[in-house]
């Protein structure tokens, strides 16, 4: 009974996702050649996130399955963002004490 319940994705989807991932990798390398200052890291992280989403949705089947797994994953990401935000605020708001005497 379970066999019929599992969504079987067509080969074409896997192929398209794989090719897209390769193109995005080439794009990341290409974009690194230009200097956009702080934007470089931001663009690289954005492209990486698009790639990660593709892997998650199609290779890890999140798109076609019960949302429980996606919620589980996103809760992890949520706490990661909290960790990052609070540490960034802490580090950013520190006053470096220097001896001026």
């Amino acid at each position: 009974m379970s066999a019929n319940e599992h969504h079987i994705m067509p080969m074409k989807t896997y192929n398209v996702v794989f090719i897209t991932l390769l193109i995005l990798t080439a794009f990341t390398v290409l974009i690194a050649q230009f200097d956009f200052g702080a934007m470089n890291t931001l663009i690289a992280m954005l492209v990486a996130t698009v790639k990660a989403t593709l892997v998650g949705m199609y290779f890890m089947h999140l798109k076609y399955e019960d949302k429980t797994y996606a919620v589980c994953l996103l809760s992890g990401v949520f706490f990661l963002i909290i960790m990052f935000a609070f540490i960034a605020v802490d580090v950013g708001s520190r006053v470096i004490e220097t001896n001026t005497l």
Partner: protein
Amino acid sequence: MSKHHHAHHFDSAEAEFEASKFGVWVFLCTEILMFGGLFVGYILYAGKYPEVFEAGSQFLDWKLGAINTAVLLLSSYTIAISIRNIQTGETKKAINNMIITLLCGFAFMGIKGYEYNHKFHLGLYPGKYFSYDAKAHHGDVKDTAPGDHNKPELMDNLPENIPMYFSFYFLMTGIHGTHVLIGMGLIFWCLMRTRRGDFSPDYYTGLEGAALFWHLVDLVWIYLFPLLYLV
């Protein structure tokens, strides 16, 4: 052919499959948080000392990093296909795809080993073990980052805390590499089970879990590659 029967405390094979899978996902969450801690540390220090990270990445060959990215993406693709092969009952194809995935794992670790070896040779160790001599190795460092990231003047004038970059580099790639090795072990186990006839369209929980873990290893590398190699 051994036929799988779901454990008595589950209503159905489907319930068992979903519960197992949820367990794997919870584990993957803990993995994301563990790697996340390293990423948070990396991003904050890279924001504070950008020159250190820019200089450090000059020692990395972006071509090797890009090849490794493609290798891992291919391995993710083949392991995803192997699940599809099991779902459609094409066991032979599934085994072939698992073998390709394993070979990709070996290729990744081989390239990683080559990179590590090159750095050890130059004395690019993490933290206090750092013993790189800029004068002795002048021109010996193969560069590396594309375009204007090629900055030889950076190589001669390394920032004082450059060893910090290599602490991050070895810690992050080292833990990631360990995950690749564990993932290869899991896929080998699935390969043996498939050969034994354990998996069928009705039951492939082990392979599903191993594949999810393998995809996570790929996900981590998707972020590591631009952060470490393309600064």
